[in-house]
C-alpha cells in the first residue's frame, strides 16, 4: 500500500493544454474518484499515473518513490510501477483462460508453483469467480469479465489500484450490484484506489473523496457531502446531481441572509453564503429534490410562490415536474402526483446556492 502525491501535473500536445496544474494527494488505503465529463482530463491524469502516457510538466510520487519528475527528467515506465490498472474494456487477453490471465502477471514476478496456484485460487474466490478458472474471456458475461479483470489487477498485490470507468460497460441493474461489491472489496483489501468516472452516482456512493475536473483542471476536491451539498461553482452544482441554474441579481447582503431578484418582480431570500459575494449578477442554484410543495391556502410565505405545473413525467419512484418561476423554467420532484396544476412551491433558504456570475462565462 502506498500514498500518491501529484504535484502541478501538466500535459500539452502542441498548443493544446490537456492538463493544467493538477495537484492532489491520495492517502494510504483511501478511495478517491476523479469525476468529470468526457474530455475533462481525468483519463489523461490516470494514464499519467499508470505510466502509459508521459506528462509534460509536474511530479508524481507513489509511496515516496518518484515516478515522474519533469525537472529531474525522471519517467518510470508502466511496467516498473507495480500498480494495477483495470481498463474500461477490461483488456482481458482473449487467448488465455481466466486462470492464465492471472498467472501471467505472477509469472512476470517469478511467483510460480504452489504459491501461484494458491494466490490465483484466493483471488478468484475473492471475486466469486473460482469456478470459472478454466474458461476463456469470450465465454463469460460482461459482469463476469469485469470481476476477472479486477482479479487480474489484484492477484499480484499492486501498491495502488487504478480503475478506469470499470462499470460503464455493465447494464444498469448489474452496475448497482457491482458498485456495492466493489466498495466492499476495496474495504476488505484496503488497497489505495483511484477511480475514474463520469457517473456522479458511482462517485458519490463509492468514494472517500471526490476530485471534480473540468477542462483539464481540478475545480473541487472534497468529500461526497462537500461536493454535493457545497459545490464551489455552478458547473459542479449541475454536474454532480443536476441542479436548476438560474441567472439572478444579488441586491442586498444582510447579516445572515441575502436578497436576490430573479426577475418579473420576484424576490428570494437565501442563507448567507460562506464564500465572498458582492451585489450584482449571480447564478442561483437549487436541486429539484429540494423544491418543496406546500399548502395553497392562505397568504404565500417567504420564498413561496404560486405556480402552474407545465408538464409532469412519471419516473417510477417519483414525479418530475416543470414549472415557470417568472421567466425561468425550473424542475421539481415529488413523491406523489399533485391534485391540481396550480401548486405552491417553497425554495428553502438553506437549499439555495448562490455563485457570483463569472465574466465571460
Amino acid at each position: 500500500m502506498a500514498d500518491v502525491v501529484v504535484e502541478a501535473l501538466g500535459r500539452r500536445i502542441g498548443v493544446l493544454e490537456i492538463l493544467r496544474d493538477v495537484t492532489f494527494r491520495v492517502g494510504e488505503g483511501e478511495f478517491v474518484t476523479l469525476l468529470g465529463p468526457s474530455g475533462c482530463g481525468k483519463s489523461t491524469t490516470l494514464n499519467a499515473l499508470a505510466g502509459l502516457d508521459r506528462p509534460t510538466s509536474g511530479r508524481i510520487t507513489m509511496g515516496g518513490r518518484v515516478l515522474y519528475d519533469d525537472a529531474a527528467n525522471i519517467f518510470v515506465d508502466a511496467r516498473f510501477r507495480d500498480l494495477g490498472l483495470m481498463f474500461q474494456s477490461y483488456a482481458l487477453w482473449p487467448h488465455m483462460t481466466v486462470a492464465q490471465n492471472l498467472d501471467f502477471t505472477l509469472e512476470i514476478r517469478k511467483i510460480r508453483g504452489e504459491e501461484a496456484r494458491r494466490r490465483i485460487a484466493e483471488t478468484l474466490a475473492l471475486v466469486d469467480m473460482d469456478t470459472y478458472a478454466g474458461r476463456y474471456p469470450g465465454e463469460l458475461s460482461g459482469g463476469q469479465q469485469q470481476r476477472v479483470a479486477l482479479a487480474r489487477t489484484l492477484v499480484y498485490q499492486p501498491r495502488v489500484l487504478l480503475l478506469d470507468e470499470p462499470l460503464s460497460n455493465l447494464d444498469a441493474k448489474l452496475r448497482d450490484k457491482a458498485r456495492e461489491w466493489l466498495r466492499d472489496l476495496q474495504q476488505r483489501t484496503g488497497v489505495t484506489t483511484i477511480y475514474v468516472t463520469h457517473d456522479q452516482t458511482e462517485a458519490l456512493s463509492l468514494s472517500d473523496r471526490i476530485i471534480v475536473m473540468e477542462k483539464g483542471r481540478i475545480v473541487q476536491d472534497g468529500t461526497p457531502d462537500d461536493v454535493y451539498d457545497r459545490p464551489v461553482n455552478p458547473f459542479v452544482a449541475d454536474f454532480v446531481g443536476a441542479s436548476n441554474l438560474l441567472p439572478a441579481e444579488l441586491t442586498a447582503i444582510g447579516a445572515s441572509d441575502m436578497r436576490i431578484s430573479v426577475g418579473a418582480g420576484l424576490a428570494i431570500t437565501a442563507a448567507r453564503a460562506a464564500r465572498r459575494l458582492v451585489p450584482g449578477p449571480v447564478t442561483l442554484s437549487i436541486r429539484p429534490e429540494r423544491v418543496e410543495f406546500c399548502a395553497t391556502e392562505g397568504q404565500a410565505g417567504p420564498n413561496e410562490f404560486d405556480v402552474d405545473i407545465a408538464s409532469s413525467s412519471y419516473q417510477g419512484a417519483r414525479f418530475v415536474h416543470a414549472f415557470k418561476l417568472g421567466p425561468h423554467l425550473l424542475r421539481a420532484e415529488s413523491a406523489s402526483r399533485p391534485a391540481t396544476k396550480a401548486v405552491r412551491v417553497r425554495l428553502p433558504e438553506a437549499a439555495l446556492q448562490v455563485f457570483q456570475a463569472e465574466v465571460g462565462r
Partner: protein
Amino acid sequence: MTVKDDVSSGAAAALPRRTSRSQGDSLAETAAQSGIGLVCLALVAIPLVPLILQAFSAVPLYAWDGAFTLANFSNLFSLPEIPGLATVTLVFCLISIGFSLIFGTVLALLVGRTNLPSRGFFANILLWPIFVSPLIIGFGAILTYGPSGYVSALFVNLFGGEAPWNIYTVTGLSLISGIAMVPMTILYCLSSAQQQDPRLEAAARIAGAGPLRIVTRITLPLMRPAIVYGFVMNVVAALEMFAIPLLLGGPVGIQLITTFIYDKGFEAGRPDYGLVSAAALILLVLVSLLVALQHVLLARAHRFISIGPKGGRLEPLDLGRWRWPAFGAVLLYVGLTIGALGFGLLLRSFVTVLSPFISPFEVLTFENYRETFMNGTYARSILNTILLAVGGGFLGTLIIGALAFVAQRSEFRFRRLVDLLAQLPRAVPGLIVSLGVFYAIVLVPGFGFLAGTLWVLALAYIIRHLPAGYGIVAPAMLQVTRDFDRAARVVGASWSQTVRRIVAPILKPAFLSCYTLLVILFFKEYAAAIFLYRPGNEVISMAMLSAWVPGYTGVVASLSVIQIAITALLIFIATRLFGVKLHG
C-alpha cells in the same frame, strides 16, 4: 423478416388495389434472384464438372460413352515418376512455406508494430511482389541470381571461384517461390498486428511485462488466426505455384504437380486427358481439404478477438537499441529480393547485354522496347491484357456485386448456397480453372465460338478470382446494418430499389476496392490462361513465356517492366484518385 411481413399484410389490408403490383414485384424479384443464383452455379460448374467427369472416364470426354472408371487414377499412380514428384512437391512446399511464414511474420511485426525507421515506406515496398506475376519474379531471379545473372557474376568477380548458389535446384526454386509468397503472409499478419486492441498490450505492460515478453506472449498468440490463415493460403499458393517451377525446374527436369499437369496436357501427339484430369482432381482435393482445415482451425475465433469496445491509439513497440540494426536487416532483405530483381529487370530492358563488367551506358538501347511495341504479337498482348483487366474486372465486379446482394441481402431460398458457391473456386487452382474452361468450351455445344477470344479468358479469370472479390464485398455488406434495408422496405421500396438506391451507394468503397483488386489480379494472371491461349488472345504473361523460350531476354525484360509500370499506374489511380485502401 417480421417487419417485411407486417408491412406487406398491412399494406394489403389498407390498400387492396396495390396487392397485385406487389405480387408482381416479388415474382420479378424471385426471377432475378434465381437468375443470379444460376449464373453463380454455372460459374462454379464450368471448370469443375468436365474435369471431374474426365477424371473418371476412360476415353476423352468428346467420345464419352457414359461409363465410369478408376483406371485414370491407377494409371497415374503406376507412373514411375510419381514418388519423385510427390517428394519434390513436398520439399518444395516445406522450404517455400517456411521461408514465407518466417520472413512474412517477422517483417509484418517489424513494419506493423514497432518504431522501425521508415516503416511506412517498407510496408508499401514489401507488398509489391503480390502485384506482379510470379513469372516476372522468376525472370528477375534468373537475370539476378542465375548462373550468368549480374549478382552471381559480381560475386564471382569479387570472391573468385563459383557462385555458392544455384537457383536451378529444388532449394533454389523453392526460395525464389518463397520470395513471391512472403507478401501474402505479410498482408494477413500486418492487418492482424495493426488491428489489435492496444489495451491488451498496455495491460501486459502495467502487469510488468517487457517488450519481448509482450511480443511472444500477447502479440504473436493473438496473431495466431492470421498466421494459421496465412499458413493455409501459403500451402494453397505453393501447391498452385506454376510459373517459377516452370522457369527454373523445367530446364533441369524438376517437376512439381502443377508442371506435371502442364507437361502432360501439352504432351506432343495425343495428350492423356484422363491422366491430366486425375492429377488435377488430386490437386483440387488437396487444396479443398486445406481450405476446410482452415475453417476448423479457426472455429473458436472468440479466443483471439478482443472483447468490448475498441479504441485508443496503437503505440508502436520501442525497439530500443535494436532499432537501427533491424532497419539494416529489413533494408538488406528488400535490397536482395525486390530491389535486386526489379533493378535487374529494369536495367536489362534498356541494354543489349547485362553484366557487371560492361558499363550499361556502353550498351544502352531502346531496341527492346521498339521490338516490343513494333511486333504485332507483343503489342497486342499488352492491349489485350489492359482490355481484360479493365473490362473483365468490371464485369467481374458486377457479377460479384449481384451474387453478394442475393447471398447477403435477399430472402432468396438458396442464398446460403450462393454464398458457399461464390467462395468455392478458392480451392480451384488457376491451372485447373484453365483446363476446366478449356474442356467446357470444347464439349458444351454452342460454346466453341468462344475459343481463342478474350471472352473465354475473362470467363476463366472471373471464375478464378470470384472468391477474392467476394471476400471484399461480402464482409463489407455484412457490416452495413440491415436496418437500412428495413427502413427502405417500410417506406415501400422493392428489393431491387433497396439494393440499387440504398445498399449499393453505401458500399461504393467496397466495390471500388473489389474492382481494383480484380484489375490487379487479372493483370498478372497467367495460370488460368494457359490452356486457353491461341494466337490473337495472348496476354502479357503468355507473350513473355513465348519470348523466353527462344531467348529474347530483352523483350521479356521490357514486357516485365511494362507490366510493372502499368500495375503501378493502376494502383496509383486507385489509391490516390479513388481513395482505395489496398491493405489494413
